[in-house]
């Protein structure tokens, strides 16, 4: 199969709104993703809680139950809002999905009603009594639940370890901030704060939309123009920072747990051009891009020290991070192996076999992404966000032309910043279940 030669049509249906169009009639389900980005400023706690409160009902669908029923009526459509950090921005995301018309009974069209439902959720939320912008009971309940979820983050040990690693490595940078600000900030919010956050979000956020699957982009563009057409004052998003680490740092923290979580972070400067960017991704893949990666083959297959070990590129920030679940006693050995393999890659570049396996792996992903709405959308949103706008065919051509020396040169850009280990504390011990015999 050939590589996709084109990039998606980009429309600008409203001020500060960009729409990437990926119509694809082969798919059974259509997806619309909306990303509303603002700086990671003091308003992020309010926007985070707002994303929860808005999902509790609108004027037209006053409860979450009513919203859920409307989605079910539309043949199992889905709609959700989330708040997260994205790069060094704060993002409120909206995901909408529905079954393509050709699979629905004749005469059934669900898109207009779903888009109207999203509009109502954003523009006409369920209001409180006596002119309150939101129902106080709903705000208090959602605040309490959000605070609980924040407190429970530790229960997911691998997720918590990654969060701690990123926030420690990028301390003092927006990338190290939490999407919800802090528990104290969430606790202090009022309904008026949420309303102000809602107004600011709709009026000023940079909006990126992507529609993929069996859907006419004209309908989405017209809807975006209708909802966001009147905007004039748009937020300016900050440039992302890429500080150079002065020296490698090591942090070890303890919690009761069984398996230690190992993270190793490297920084790199802005690549000179598209070719240098591709070489960096290639170097990351040679190091730990999957079962063909060096770390997997040595740390797992040769030394049996981990079930999985992977390297990941965080391209906007200029980070490559390595992660693995290991026995805490193997920490130094794993760390030394990462250092050794990276140094070897920096000095000699990939072997011929690594070049071949990494190339064929990356080309296969590029060929295959046209089959999945999620992968298509992810690929082109990333390209757009990075400002690269490369078609899969363009990337494939660069990849096939890369030389081992360029991979080594790219690997030499990596500067180690932080090694982090979340490990079991001394009193962690397995506790056997205690039972009460059944009465029957």
């Amino acid at each position, binding site marked *: *199969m050939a590589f996709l030669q084109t990039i998606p049509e980009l429309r600008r249906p409203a001020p500060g709104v960009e729409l990437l169009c990926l119509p694809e009639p*082969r*798919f*059974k*389900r259509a997806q619309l993703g909306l990303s509303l980005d603002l700086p990671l400023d003091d308003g992020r706690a309010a926007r985070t809680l707002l994303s929860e409160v808005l999902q509790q009902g609108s004027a037209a669908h006053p*409860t*979450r*139950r009513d919203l*859920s*029923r409307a*989605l*079910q*009526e539309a*043949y*199992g*459509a889905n709609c959700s809002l989330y708040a997260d950090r994205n790069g060094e921005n704060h993002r409120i995301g909206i995901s909408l*999905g529905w*079954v393509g018309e050709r*699979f629905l009974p004749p005469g059934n069209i669900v898109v207009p009603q779903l888009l109207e439902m999203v509009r109502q959720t954003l523009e006409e939320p369920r209001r409180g009594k006596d002119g309150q912008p939101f129902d106080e009971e709903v705000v208090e309940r959602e605040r309490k*639940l959000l605070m*609980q979820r924040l407190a*429970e983050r*530790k*229960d997911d*040990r691998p997720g918590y370890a990654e969060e701690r690693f990123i926030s420690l490595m990028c301390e003092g940078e927006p990338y190290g901030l939490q999407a919800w600000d802090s528990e104290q900030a969430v606790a202090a919010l009022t309904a008026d704060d949420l309303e102000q956050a809602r107004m600011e979000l709709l009026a000023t956020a940079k909006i990126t939309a992507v529609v993929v699957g069996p859907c006419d982009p004209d309908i989405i563009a017209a809807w975006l123009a209708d909802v966001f057409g009147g905007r004039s004052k748009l937020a300016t998003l900050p440039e992302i920072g890429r500080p150079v680490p002065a020296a490698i740092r090591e942090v070890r923290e303890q*919690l*009761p*747990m*069984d398996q230690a979580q190992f993270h190793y972070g490297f920084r790199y400067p802005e690549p000179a051009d598209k070719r240098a960017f591709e070489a960096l991704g290639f170097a990351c893949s040679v190091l730990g891009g999957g*079962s*063909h990666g060096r770390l997997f083959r040595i740390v797992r*297959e040769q*030394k*049996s*020290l*981990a*079930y999985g070990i992977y390297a990941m590129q965080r391209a906007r920030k200029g980070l490559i991070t390595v992660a693995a*679940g*290991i*026995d805490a006693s193997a920490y130094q050995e794993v760390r030394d192996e990462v250092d050794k393999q990276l140094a070897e890659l920096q000095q000699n570049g990939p072997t011929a076999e690594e070049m*071949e*396996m990494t190339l064929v*792996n*990356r080309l*296969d*992903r590029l*060929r*295959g992404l046209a*089959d999945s709405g999620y992968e298509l959308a992810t690929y082109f949103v990333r390209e757009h966000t990075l400002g690269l706008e490369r078609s899969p065919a363009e990337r494939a051509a660069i990849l096939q032309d890369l030389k081992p020396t360029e991979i080594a040169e790219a690997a030499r850009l990596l500067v180690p910043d932080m090694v982090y280990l979340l490990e079991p504390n001394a009193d*962690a011990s397995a*506790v*056997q*279940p*205690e*039972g*009460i*015999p*059944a*009465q*029957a």
Partner: protein
Amino acid sequence: MKILETIQHDQSGETVVLAQSTSGTRIALCRTPGFSTSSGHFGLRFGSTDTHFRLPSGQEVEVPGGSAHYLEHKLFEGREEKVFDRFGKLGARFNGGTSFRTTTYHFTTASRFQECLEVLVDFVQHPLITEERVDKERGIIEQEVRMYADHPGFAGTFLLHEALYAKHGIRVEPGGTVEDVRAIHAKHLQDCFDGFYRPSAMCLSLAGDFDTDEVLAFLESRLDVDDTPLATKLYPTEPTSPHADWLERDFPVTRPHVWIGWRAEGGEPDGHQRLRTRLINSLVLDLAFDVSSDTHADLYRRGVIDDSFGCHWSGDSDWGHVVASGLCDDPKLFVTEIRKAAEAFAMQGPGEADFERLKRAAWGGLISGLQTPTALAGNILSSMLGDLRPFEMLDALAGICFADVQQAAKSLFHPQQSAVAVLKPSE
């Protein structure tokens, strides 16, 4: 090679050719014109609970928990060359999976389908299992088992299984315990392979933009010819009531995690009936506790449940139970409230309009899951391993009527059949 049937499935819009090899391996081919990727899924009905069996020679064998999963790992070792390297050179995505009752192996490729297919059928049919090779994998599998050990959802699920069942194999996670993993030897894995990895037990599902005749001709020469009979699975007789009313375990969690289970009368040996039961019971659970239900709205508003709350049905040929789980401050209050709500729902019964709406939503969910060649091949293999026709879940769903869920709603939440598992904060 025998072509058995061509199914043109209207609801999904897909066409599937069913065939059978000389030795009885069942094959399904789903053409997906215009798609870039192709996918192959190869598997059998042998899983983590199959630890006690009688070989065709008459010899009874007992293997440690986790043996099926260990064997899955060992197959990826290959004979002369690691499967990682073989697939790696082809650029394919690949993996395997072991559940309570099945083991599956799969790949997805956008360029070298036939070569990947050759690797798949070769490594699954022709392993080399030696003590040295088994030892080498032990550390990796221990780390995999320990990865799950820190996961409260995993720990709680298996604590509930311990409460619901006295002897059943689903009390133990598919990977086994660390102690199980340390007790597994080459002989155990060879016995499992010899007893179950027989051509007549294997199912192969392929999806992609390929030539069906060419693929079948290729497979004819690659699928083993062997009529050795299968081993016989021996399952313990399980008491009909839960083993324990309430089990607790200290665990490093912030708030208590609670699982409530209700056992059904037994499993469903017949695949079609098992599918129907799963669909009906899933609809009943949605009617009772989905976000769209009045019950959920009331419990959520009163703070009994939050977004961690969920319900599902789990069942196979010899087990079946409902699970409702969530985080809470007071496990006893949580259990009392959920049980009370379940019993009230069973008394009142579901509403017909709610049933129609949820059935429509379930259909949308099922059809949306049949998107990519990978998803199609995986879904069809699951059907084959469950003794079902491809996409039978869509047809079965269409055949479910309101009376079916009314009847199931009355019997699903029997108080005497319920058990509870709690992970208590240990910090």
